[in-house]
């Protein structure tokens, strides 16, 4: 079994009286695709936000590569190697596709000063940005302003931006949200390809993609972890079926 990359112990986040994430023990192993499932309001996005430092946990501990990271700022956590994408499309609309990726790559390659000081560094940024676009099959859009691209392409650009930061761990919040069937299949393939090199944590509603992609799945309900385990175990679990899959299947059959 591969080593644990990230783990949380008793992770809790309260918003006023609402407990969005409640005593969550969660761990991600190296080079796995770990999907988080759960009905709306289960606390999936909050969990991702806690992991990426968007806001601090109320209680509990997060360890990344054996270092505690709870309470650190988002920018610090990003620079430690946790890259994330947001649920809402979150690209820089006025910048071109390539510039979006350059921006993402630059901060992890010495920042603005690094690029100013050494031409080699600046070139490395360009290379990495282009590579990220290539992986996401967006090279032909390199010089198109992000605002001029289709929704699906913008979502893909978002993944490319996370890639350009060359993270150790990628947190993707519904990367396929709002995509068409064809685009979803395309992104699923893309993510599958990434799994060789990266560790992924994925929130996704699309069941087919989740079961095809994930090695392990954590199911959350009302801020708590209902069950966590290999994909096959979750697929077969009675508990999960009752709470989530059952509902989902009813919808499908209805």
């Amino acid at each position: 079994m591969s080593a644990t990359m990230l783990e949380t112990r008793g992770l809790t986040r309260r918003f006023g009286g609402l407990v969005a994430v409640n005593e969550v023990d969660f761990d991600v192993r190296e080079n796995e695709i770990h999907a988080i499932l759960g009905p709306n309001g289960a606390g999936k996005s909050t969990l991702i936000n806690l992991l990426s430092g968007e806001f601090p946990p109320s209680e509990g501990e997060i360890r990344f590569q054996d270092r505690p990271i709870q309470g650190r700022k988002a920018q610090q956590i990003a620079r430690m190697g946790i890259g994330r994408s947001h649920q809402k499309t979150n690209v820089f609309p006025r910048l071109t596709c390539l510039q979006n990726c350059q921006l993402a790559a630059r901060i992890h390659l010495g920042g603005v000063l690094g690029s100013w000081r050494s031409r080699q560094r600046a070139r490395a940024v360009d290379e990495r940005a282009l590579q990220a676009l290539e992986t996401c099959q967006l090279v032909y859009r390199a010089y198109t302003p992000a605002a001029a691209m289709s929704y699906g392409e913008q979502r893909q650009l978002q993944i490319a931006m996370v890639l350009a930061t060359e993270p150790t761990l990628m947190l993707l919040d519904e990367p396929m949200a709002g995509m068409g069937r064809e685009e979803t299949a395309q992104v699923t393939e893309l993510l599958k390809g990434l799994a060789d090199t990266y560790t992924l944590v994925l929130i996704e509603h699309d069941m087919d993609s989740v079961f095809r992609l994930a090695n392990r799945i954590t199911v959350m309900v009302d801020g708590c972890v209902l069950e966590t385990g290999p994909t096959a175990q979750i697929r077969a679990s009675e508990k999960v079926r009752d709470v989530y899959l059952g509902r989902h299947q009813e919808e499908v059959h209805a």
Partner: protein
Amino acid sequence: MLHTYPKRVVVIMLVLTAIVAIFPLWGPAVFGAQSDFMMEKMTLMLILALFAMSLDLLVGIVGLVSLGHALFFGLGAYTLALASPAFSPAAIWWMAPLVMLVAALAALVVGFLVIRTRGIFFIMTTLAFGQMLYYFVSTSRHTGGTDGVFIMFRPSVEVGGAVLLDLDNPLTFFYVCLAMVVVGYLFLRWLTRSFFGQVLDGIHDNEHRMEALGYATGHYKLVAFVISGVMASLAGMLAAMQYGFANPSQLGWHTSGEVLMMLILGGMGTVFGPILGAFAYEILQHTFEHLTTHWPILMGITIILAVLILPRGIAGLIIDPPSRASLAKSSPLRWLKPGRAAPASEAVKPAAPAPREG
């Protein structure tokens, strides 16, 4: 792409620069005896253009609306006035760096505190700091109270005893200001298109995302704040030389508001827009002042109309000139000529909606 403009922008700016630069040739013919006065006015417009440009870095590029930018303008003026010896000119070689240093330090301190706030709170905190200095200089004995401080001698530009530029000569000073605007413009153009500028664009569009990528956005904003403050202080120093005094009104919120209006009139975030805005604002004010004593009313109406008709300022008009079809559709024209505009807009229509029906 962002910060790349059509060629006509360069052409128009070069032509305008040339027209301003050869003012001494055509000025006397057009304005006659008033020519010298006009040149002083023009010098002032150039100084304000530099001031407006510096604010554009904050407001237009980074997206931080400051209502206290005159703080640095006035600080430049007062630093020059207070540091100048009473009976001899100061050397520009240490005066300019001193002004920049004082402004940079002030911008660091003020920026460190205000950069944490956003939106309306940023406006209010910058306003507060501006007014703090305003009340300090207008009540302190050391700064001459509401009278301000007079500057007896403009700084000298000498190397080894040889006078390079005589700043007391209005013509020389005019060209120095023109050169400062050109240099300031080129600097800002370079900055906005550099890697640093890219980060500022990112912060402007989505600061949150920049943090998620790993950028310590506060640092970048602070650097922009300091650069902007230093540029404004240089404009303030030139203004103090031009007027011959430093006055509290130079750092009050009135001045901050005026320069903000120049920015809006000219077009935010374009760097060349604020230059046009400064000239347009001053020319408008000059014209209205001669028409009526109630000129602020006219000025206000003009600004409101300008914002309504040209939401992206004069610069937007140049970057993206309206086509005939869009002009015919625009509400002010339809309102003015209801009979003629209607068929024009209908003539345009059939081309667009046709595929939608099929």
